[in-house]
C-alpha cells in the first residue's frame, strides 16, 4: 500500500496529521473562556453597576487562558509552514 509514496511525501503527510493533532489543544481554552464568560454574565446580572470592571477582568482572564491554545496553534503553524521534520530528513 505504501509502495508509491516517497519518504518526503510521507513526512509531509505525517506533519499535517501532527498539526491537526496539535490543534486539539484548542478544546481547553474554548471550555475555559466559555466558563469565564458565563461567570462574567452571572456577575453582571448580580451587580450591573460594576459592569466595566467585570468585563475588563473577564477579558484579561480569557486572554491568559487562551495562551495554551495559542501554543498549540504555533506548533501547528511551524509543522505546516516551516517543516522542521522534512529539513531534518533531508540533512540526514
Amino acid at each position, binding site marked *: 500500500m505504501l509502495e508509491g509514496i516517497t519518504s518526503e511525501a510521507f513526512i509531509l503527510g505525517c506533519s499535517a496529521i501532527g498539526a491537526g493533532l496539535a490543534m486539539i489543544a484548542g478544546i481547553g481554552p474554548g471550555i475555559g473562556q466559555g466558563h469565564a464568560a458565563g461567570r462574567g454574565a452571572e456577575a453582571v446580572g448580580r451587580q450591573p453597576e460594576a459592569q466595566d470592571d467585570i468585563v*475588563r477582568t473577564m477579558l484579561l482572564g480569557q486572554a491568559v487562558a487562551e495562551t495554551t491554545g*495559542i501554543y498549540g496553534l*504555533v506548533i501547528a503553524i511551524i509543522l505546516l509552514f516551516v517543516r522542521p521534520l522534512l529539513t531534518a530528513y533531508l540533512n540526514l
Partner: protein
Amino acid sequence: MKIEIAMKLFGKDILIPDTIVNTWIILIILTIFALIVNNKIKKAEAGEKPSRFLNVVEVLVEFVDGLVKSTMGPNKMFFAPYILTLVMFLLLANLFGLIGFTPPTSDYSVTFTLALMTFFLTQYYSFKTSGFLGYFKNFTEPMAFLTPLNILGELANPISLSFRLFGNVLSGVIIMGLLYSALGYFAPIFTPVLHAYFDVFSGVLQTFIFAMLTMIFVGGAMD
C-alpha cells in the same frame, strides 16, 4: 499589497520582508500624526472648546490615563506615555490588514521585541524598587526550593505575551488568505464579516490585552 526590499550589503543578499517595511510605514504615519497634534495643541486656546480633531486625541489620551490610573495607581502616571505609544502602534499595526497590507504583528520578530521591552522594564523596576539583594531575594519567595520555578515563570512571561499577540494576528491572516484563495472572485461576499472579526475585534482586543498585561507586570514590579 506587498513591498519587499532586496539589497546587497558586504556581498550578502539581504531580504527585508514586507512586515518590516510596513512597520516603517506605521512609524512614519505615527511621527507625522505626532507632529500635527503638537502643532495644533500649541495653537489651541485653553479657555475655548477644542476643535474636532483635538477632541478625538483628548478622548484617546484620557482613556489611556484612566486605564493607567485604575490599573497601576495614581502615583505611577509617568508610565502613561509609554502605554499610549504602545496602544497607538499596536492599534495601527493590527488594523493594517484592513487596507490590504500584511499586519506587522504577524511577524514574530515585532511581537517578541515588544514583549522583550515589557520584560526588561519589569526587571528594571523590580531591581530599582527592591535593590540589589532584594531583587534576588524576590526569586526565593515564598520558599527557597521554589527558585527554579520562579525564574522559569519570569522567563515565560515574554514568550506567552509575544505568542498571544502573534498567534491571534497570524491565525487571522492565514484563515483570510485561505478563504481568499479558495473563493476567488466570490471572496468579497463572505470576507467582510471575517475582516470585522479578525482585524477589528481581535486586533483591538489584543491591543488592549497587551497594554493591560504590560501595566500589570510593570506595576507589580514597582510595588
